[in-house]
C-alpha cells in the first residue's frame, strides 16, 4: 500500500428499491439506515488507512445525480456541534453524507420516487472528477491539486447497486466503461439488492474490477472490507471473490429490450431485436432478400434453416486467434 488510493463511491439511492429491500419477507432484510451505517464504517476505514487517501461520494437519486462529498473540496464546516470524542475527518464525512442524502430524499415528491435512478450521471461525474484529480491541468491554476505525479492516487469506482438494469442507458454506460478503461480506472460493483445487472457485470469485467452479488446482506460491511478495500494492485496477491459468469448481452435500439441474438446494421452497428427494413439510426435500407432470409430463419428450431448459415456474413477464416491453425 505504498500508493495512496482514491475511491469514488456511487450509491444507488432509489427509495422504492430500498423500501423493497427492507421488507421483512427478505431472507436478510436491509434498510437504508443500516446500510448507511455500515457504509460509513467502510468510508472511515478508507480515509484512516492512509493519510493521503481521498474519497468522493456520489448519489444516484431518481432521475438525478449529486456529488455528496469529496475530500478535495472542503466546504465551510459548521463547527458548532463538534464531537470531541470523534476523529474529526470521520465526523465530517459522516455528517455531510448523511445530511445530504436526507436533504435530497426529502426534496423528492411522491411522483418522482419511482423514476429510474441517475446512474449514468453519477458514473460520468465520477469519471470527470477522477479525470480532474489525476490530471491536474495547467490551465487551472488552483493550488488544491498541485501534487507531483508520484503521489497522485490510484483511482477506482465502487458502485453499490440496488436497482435493476435500465436498458435505455446501455450506450452511455458502455461509453463510461470505455472511458474508465482509458483512464485506467477500476470499477467495482457490489450488488446489494435486486437481480444481477448485465451492464454492471460488463463494467466490472471490462475494467478489471470485481462484481459481487451479496447473498448474505447482513454481512455487507465484511464484504465491503474483504473484497473492495484492497487496492487493485494488492488484489493480485490476495484472493478476492470474483463473479462467475459474465453476460455479454446488449440492449436493442428499438425497444430497449435486452437481447442475446440481435440483428445488426452493417453500416452503424445498431442492434435490433427483429429484422427491420430500415435502420432507424442511419436510415440505411436493407435489401429485401436479407429480410426474407432472416425472417425465415428466425423461429428458433433445433436445426436452423439453411438461410441462417448464410446469414452470418463474417470472415471466419481470418478473424481472431480462435481458428485452428
Amino acid at each position: 500500500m505504498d500508493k495512496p488510493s482514491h475511491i469514488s463511491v456511487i450509491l444507488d439511492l432509489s427509495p422504492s428499491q430500498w423500501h423493497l429491500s427492507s421488507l421483512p419477507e427478505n431472507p436478510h432484510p436491509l434498510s437504508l439506515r443500516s446500510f448507511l451505517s455500515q457504509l460509513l464504517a467502510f468510508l472511515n476505514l478508507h480515509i484512516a488507512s492512509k493519510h493521503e487517501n481521498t474519497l468522493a461520494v456520489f448519489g444516484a437519486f431518481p432521475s438525478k445525480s449529486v456529488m455528496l462529498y469529496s475530500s478535495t473540496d472542503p466546504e465551510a464546516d459548521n463547527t458548532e456541534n463538534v464531537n470531541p470524542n470523534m476523529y474529526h475527518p470521520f465526523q465530517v464525512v459522516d455528517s455531510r453524507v448523511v445530511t445530504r442524502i436526507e436533504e435530497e430524499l426529502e426534496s423528492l415528491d411522491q411522483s418522482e420516487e419511482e423514476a429510474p435512478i441517475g446512474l449514468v450521471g453519477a458514473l460520468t461525474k465520477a469519471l470527470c472528477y477522477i479525470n480532474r484529480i489525476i490530471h491536474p491541468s495547467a490551465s487551472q491554476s488552483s493550488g488544491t491539486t498541485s501534487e507531483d505525479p508520484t503521489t497522485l492516487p490510484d483511482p477506482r469506482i465502487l458502485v453499490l447497486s440496488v436497482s435493476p438494469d435500465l436498458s435505455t442507458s446501455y450506450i452511455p454506460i458502455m461509453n463510461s466503461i470505455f472511458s474508465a478503461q482509458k483512464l485506467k480506472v477500476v470499477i467495482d460493483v457490489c450488488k446489494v439488492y435486486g437481480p444481477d445487472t448485465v451492464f454492471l457485470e460488463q463494467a466490472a469485467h471490462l475494467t478489471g474490477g470485481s462484481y459481487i452479488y451479496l447473498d448474505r446482506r447482513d454481512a455487507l460491511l465484511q464484504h465491503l472490507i474483504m473484497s473492495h478495500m484492497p487496492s487493485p494492485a494488492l488484489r493480485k496477491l490476495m484472493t478476492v471473490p470474483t463473479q462467475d459468469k459474465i453476460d455479454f448481452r446488449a440492449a436493442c435500439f428499438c425497444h430497449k429490450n435486452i437481447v442475446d441474438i440481435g440483428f445488426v446494421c452493417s453500416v452503424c452497428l445498431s442492434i435490433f431485436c427483429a429484422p427491420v427494413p430500415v435502420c432507424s439510426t442511419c436510415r440505411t435500407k436493407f435489401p429485401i432478400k436479407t429480410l426474407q432470409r432472416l425472417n425465415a430463419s428466425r423461429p428458433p428450431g433445433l436445426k436452423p434453416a439453411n438461410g441462417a448459415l448464410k446469414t452470418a456474413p463474417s470472415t471466419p477464416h481470418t478473424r481472431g486467434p480462435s481458428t485452428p491453425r
Partner: protein
Amino acid sequence: MAPRKDIDYMDGESDSDVDVIDDSGDRGKKGKGKAIDRRKKDKGKGKSSEQPYAWEASYTRSWDTVQEDEAGSLTSAVADLVARGRRRRLLAPANAIRRTIIRHLIIILDLSASMLDRDMRPTRFGLTLEYAREFIVEWFDQNPLGQIGLVGMRAGLGERLSEMSGNPQDVLKALSERHKLEPAGEPSLQNAIDMARTSMSHLPTHSSREILIIFGSLTTVDPGNIHDTLDACIRDRIRVSVVALAAEMKICREFCDKTGGQFGVAMNEGHFKDLLFELIPPPAQRALSRAAGAGATNLAADLMMMGFPVRLPDTSPPTLCVCHSELKSEGFLCPRCSAKVCDVPTDCDICGLMIVSSPHLARSYHHLFPVKPYQAVTTLDDTSTPAKSCHACARSFPEAAATNVATTEGLSPLGRYRCPDCHHDFCTDCDVFVHDVVHCCPGCGK
C-alpha cells in the same frame, strides 16, 4: 453503384477527428497547408513555399517553436490549441454521418533501400515502424471490428508480413521482429498492391476495403502495367491512400484520386504522423442527401444476425470446446445452440451464428450519438443563479472573467461551457473530456 460510393468517400473532407497539432513552424500557415492538402488541389506548389521539407531544414525541434507570450508563460499557446479544438468540433457537421465501421485495411510498408535514408530521425525505416505501431493501436481502438494485414515491398517483391487479423497483438508482433524487416532492394508497387488486393477479395460486401501505402521511394519496379492494377482496385472498390516520405509520384496520386483515398507527402516527422493519423477515423459516408432514391440501392448495407454470448469463468468445470476440441474451463457459450467456443468474435462452428461480445459493437457507438457541443458562456447577466462549480467535477468556477483570453473565439472568459440540452455549466477540462473521451453529458445522462 461503384462510382457513387467512391464519391461518397471523397466527401469526407472535414471528418478527421485527428488533431492538427503542428510541431513546427507558423501555426496559421500550417493550417492552410492542411486545408489545401485535404482538398487535394495545387498541393505541391502551395506547400513547398510554406514549410521546408525535412531534408531542407538544418535542424528543428518542436520545443523550439512553442512561443511564450509577453508574460513568459505558455498558457496562451495552450489556450489557442484548446480553442482550435473547440472550433473544429463546432464546425463538424452535426447531421447524420454514416461510417463504414467494419473496416479491412492492409498496410503496405516500403522496405526498399531508400527507407534507410536519414532525413527523418532516426531513419525513415525506424520512424515508420514506430508510427505504424502507434497507428495500429489507435486504429483498433477506434475501429474495434476492423482487421489489419501487413504487406512489405522489398527487393521487387511483395511480402506478406502478417495475415488479416482483428487482434492488434498479432499485427504488432509482425512489426516487432525488426530483423526480419531490414530494408533492401527496390520496391514494387504493383506486386504489393496485387498481393493486398487478392487477400481482400473474399471479404463481404458491407465492409470497407482499404490499402495504406507508406512509400519512401521515387521508383517502382513492376512486372506489368500498373494501370491494370489501378483499374482492378477501382473495380474491387478498394480505397488506396498513400503517405509518401520523399516526394509526389504521379502514379501514387492517381491511385488515391481514382479510388477515393488520401494522398500526402510528409514534410517532417510531425506531419508524417498527422498524415497517418488522419486515416484512423472511419471514412464517412455522407447520409445520402442526393435524390434518385440513393438509399434504396445501397447494396453494400446489410442486416447481420449476431449472437451475444455468456462468458464462462475460469473456475467452471472443464468442457470440450467446439473449435479445437480441447478441455478448457473458460469459454463463451453460443446463445443459439449453447456450443462453447474459445474466443470471440467468431462464427459458431455448430450453427454458424456470428458471435460477438456486445462491448465490441458498443465501442463505436459514440460515433453515432455524439454529445452536442457545449456553448461557451460569455456573460452571466442572463443567468439568474449561476452555478458556483462545474456540474461534473465540482471544481469551482473563477469569480471574475479572465481578461487575457477574452478575445479568443470559442473560449469562455468565465471558463464555463453550457450544455444546450440540460443547461448545466462545465469547466474547460470537463468540456474536453466529455467530448473526447466520455461521449456522454453528465448533466443529461444521455
